[in-house]
């Protein structure tokens, strides 16, 4: 792999890792398979691109993308908690609605950001950073976000969020409103996903209405890869694993492309990564036994009580 491909892969991997942290928050922490991710990734890209071409500050546009993602997450959360729609369906509903919303936001199917000021062109103006701006900014971003999420998960609110995903009855009996927790978790998750979408759009210099398709599966694949390779023995380790998984996923994709597959085959490859992870017993056990909340793990602990 040439340095150019490798650095490009790393850059993209670090940006996607922010999205993967978002997926981790819902999929693992809240135990909620949230499909709105496909829509909110594009939403972030659409908001940022539209604002940037309209002449707004790209940093502001990136912040607005995060806020848009928050709203999308709140929407999914309200559908689920207040109107009792199943997690899967409420995510799909948001995702579907967002497809139209994104086209509305952009006004067309794609927006080009070629030769436009972005957070990356801004960053490249700093001394010594020319040529490494994307890599350094993406790395700094994912480290900061990873650290914040790690600290958050160890706060009182963070503990309540994790317990909501683990045992609703228990945390309710400790006085926590699980509806608020779910809405909050979904909001943060989708905010991060949209934030990542705005980075990717600015890096590839265009936003496209279809760029979020399959994002949830890519996120799941990344979470699983990270958990298997790094482990989940503590929250800190898990957050590192998730970030690492996001980068590794892009590396695997790059390798697959080098083998001669077409970029259009990527979604299939991704789906197969997830399928293999889900059906191979060894990986399955490793991934799930550590979280302590699957059928297998439940069976084991039940066996301990006569």
């Amino acid at each position, binding site marked *: 792999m040439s340095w150019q491909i490798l650095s490009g892969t790393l850059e993209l991997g670090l940006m996607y890792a922010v999205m993967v942290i978002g997926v981790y928050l819902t999929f693992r922490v809240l135990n909620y398979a949230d499909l709105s991710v496909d829509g909110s990734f594009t939403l972030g890209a659409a908001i940022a691109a539209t604002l940037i071409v309209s002449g707004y500050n790209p940093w502001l546009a990136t912040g607005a993308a995060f806020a848009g993602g928050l709203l999308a997450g709140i929407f999914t959360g309200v559908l689920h908690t207040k109107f009792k729609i199943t997690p899967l369906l409420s995510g799909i509903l948001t995702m579907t609605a967002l497809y139209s919303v994104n086209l509305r936001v952009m006004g067309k199917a794609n927006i080009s950001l070629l030769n436009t000021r972005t957070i990356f062109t801004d960053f490249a103006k700093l001394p010594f950073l020319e040529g490494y701006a994307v890599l350094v900014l993406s790395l700094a971003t994912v480290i900061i976000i990873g650290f914040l999420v790690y*600290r*958050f998960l*160890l*706060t*009182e*609110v*963070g*503990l*309540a969020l*994790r*317990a909501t995903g*683990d*045992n609703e*009855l*228990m*945390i*309710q*009996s*400790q*006085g*926590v*409103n*699980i509806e608020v927790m779910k809405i909050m978790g979904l909001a943060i998750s989708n905010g991060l996903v949209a934030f990542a979408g705005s980075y990717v759009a600015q890096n590839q210099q265009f936003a496209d209405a279809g760029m979020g398709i399959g994002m949830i599966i890519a996120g799941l694949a990344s979470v699983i890869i990270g958990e298997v390779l790094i482990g989940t023995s503590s929250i800190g380790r898990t957050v590192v694993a998730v970030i690492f998984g996001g980068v590794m996923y892009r590396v695997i994709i790059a390798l697959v492309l080098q083998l001669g597959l077409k970029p259009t085959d990527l979604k299939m490859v991704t789906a197969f990564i997830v399928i293999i992870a889900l059906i191979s017993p060894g990986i399955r056990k490793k991934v799930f036994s550590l*979280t*302590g*909340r699957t059928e297998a*793990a*439940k069976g084991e*602990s*039940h066996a*301990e*009580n*006569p």
Partner: protein
Amino acid sequence: MLKIRNVTKIFNKGTINEKVALDGVSLELNEGDFVTVIGSNGAGKSTLLNAVAGNFSIDAGEIFIEGNNVTALPQHKRAEFISRVFQDPMLGTASSMTIEENLVMARRRGHRRRLRKAITSRDRTIFMEELKKLGLGLESRLTNRVSLLSGGQRQALTLLMATLQTPKLLLLDEHTAALDPKTADKVLELTRSVAEESRLTTFMVTHNLEHALSIGNRTIMMHEGRIILDISGDKRSGMTMEGLLEMFGKASGKLLANDKMLLA
């Protein structure tokens, strides 16, 4: 302390499976009362307990805790007053989280949760002291995941969590039923000592008639959604297991007679 007034709960209302689980139940518990509740399956014991905890809304009646009308409060708001231990040892703790994380969540029961570091070193010292009292060696395993504990250990931990911040009312739903006899005795002994130590108002559902009479100061028998026996003081100390069984039989005999009448 706890006042239950004419509480009625009907499950599957308006369907063919309609079941009156609580039929105008009234009950008053005084401060420091330890009430044991017995009755056959489907008598309404757990339903009564869940109605007090706020798991569901009731169809009629009112519930007061220390003069506060909590009838309309959701479960998480009642947690300010109530703590509970469930029958299933898996239900009382978050298994993917550590022992200290579970304990700290219980320590903040009913309080606003903030964006500050959840566990302080002071918390840890308190947890170690309290865990030592359980005598299960858990004090050296603060950062272990709860999923690594046995059912008995988890139930003991849940009991500790329930009393870490003294509740106004402790609800125990057959909390020793899923444990082996030895562990059950130990957890029961713990229950007795924590309830006595803090003079907790306690409501304990049990299937064990011996426990029903030997623990606490008052015994209630339920049948078909009603309280059919409420004894305390001398009447209770004079009661034997045989006596209770007889009452049990009488109640179910009545049921049989009713059924016969229905079929005739």
